[in-house]
């Protein structure tokens, strides 16, 4: 264009010294967020976005064996109770939630993508993020009761909910870029689901 017309302005792209006080203060502030959000594991890595109630998920294979044993136990008890109920009264059909019901509940509860998009209406977006988080948490609980959703997908859904929680908090703090980064992360988690399809279109939510 016309950079030659105003070459002086190109000087603005030369690096300038960062005020040392600001540089050091911001550095400390940023590193403290790693301390507060993270929990070191044996490998020395950090784990963000986990509420206390989510943390058992990080315990590795022991947790999963226990969870798997628990699921088998619950399924066995459920099957036994079902048999007893059916033998008592063949006319009663047990009302059980299935994926279609869980998905329907989710679709009705969450906002469309357009509501979550960048907008000046931050209150509306904050509310939409909160509704989506609540919807995903409910869906995760519902799907966890079924045996057709992989543990990996359940953890991705929980990670998405955690990221949405972070996104909402960032928005409240006025950190719009952080909020969007966390929202993108949540949507990426949904896109990576393998045994259930959960996505948001411009006008509605999708769940199969």
């Amino acid at each position, binding site marked *: 264009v016309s950079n030659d017309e105003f070459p002086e302005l*190109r*000087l603005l792209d030369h690096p300038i010294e*960062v005020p040392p006080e600001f540089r050091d203060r*911001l550095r400390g502030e940023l590193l403290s*967020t*790693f301390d507060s959000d993270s929990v070191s594991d044996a490998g020395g890595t950090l784990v963000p976005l986990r509420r206390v109630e989510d943390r058992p998920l990080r315990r590795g294979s022991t947790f999963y064996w226990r969870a798997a044993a628990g699921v088998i136990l619950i399924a066995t008890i459920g099957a036994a109770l079902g048999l007893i109920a059916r033998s008592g009264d063949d006319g009663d059909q047990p009302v059980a939630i299935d994926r279609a019901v869980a998905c329907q509940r989710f679709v009705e509860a969450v906002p469309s993508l357009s509501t979550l998009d960048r907008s000046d209406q931050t209150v509306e977006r904050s509310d939409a993020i909160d509704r989506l988080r609540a919807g995903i948490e409910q869906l995760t609980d519902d799907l966890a009761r079924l045996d057709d959703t992989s543990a990996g997908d359940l953890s991705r859904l929980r990670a998405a909910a955690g990221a949405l929680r972070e996104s909402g908090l960032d928005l409240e703090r006025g950190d719009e*870029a952080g909020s969007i980064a*966390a929202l993108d992360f949540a949507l990426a988690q949904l896109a990576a689901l393998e045994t259930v399809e959960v996505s948001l279109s411009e006008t509605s939510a999708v769940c199969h």
Partner: protein
Amino acid sequence: VNTRPLAPIVTRHPPADAFAAFYDSNVRDVYSFARARVGGDDAEDVTSEVFHAAAIAFKHGREEEISIAWLIGVARNKIIDRWRKAQRHKAKAHLLRPRESDVAVPPDWYDDERRDAVLASVDQLSERHRSLLILHHLDGMPIAEIAEALEMSHSAVESALARARRAFRTEYEKRRQ
């Protein structure tokens, strides 16, 4: 029970010292970019917001995506947001472009004094004049795109840009004498 291998549950990311090294390597470039475009306090705010976003990305295990281009992109976004809010104009996010090239001034042209004079001069401009001057002459955005981004007419951008150039020259020459 599904027995296929479980996907990693924990989002792994480098420890805080990796982020600290990343910060140390890039804070100067981000601050410089912001400082050229907005005043000192605003530049600190923009830099802070950019690195908080980067910290979140690191904590989500997305550090591979984070580069100086990413940081500058977020900074540019923040700055345009500020201009938009200040001028009650709506910038279009898709017009935000990555940094096109490194500094293009002749090597023997640069000195701290000259750079400081330029910076002090643009600091004296109104936000509107500064934004037009930066978008057109530093970032190389055509007038038609600026007009679309700031929802101004082509002729309004041209005349405001002419006033911005005059204001800048006046301030700059005052400092170079």
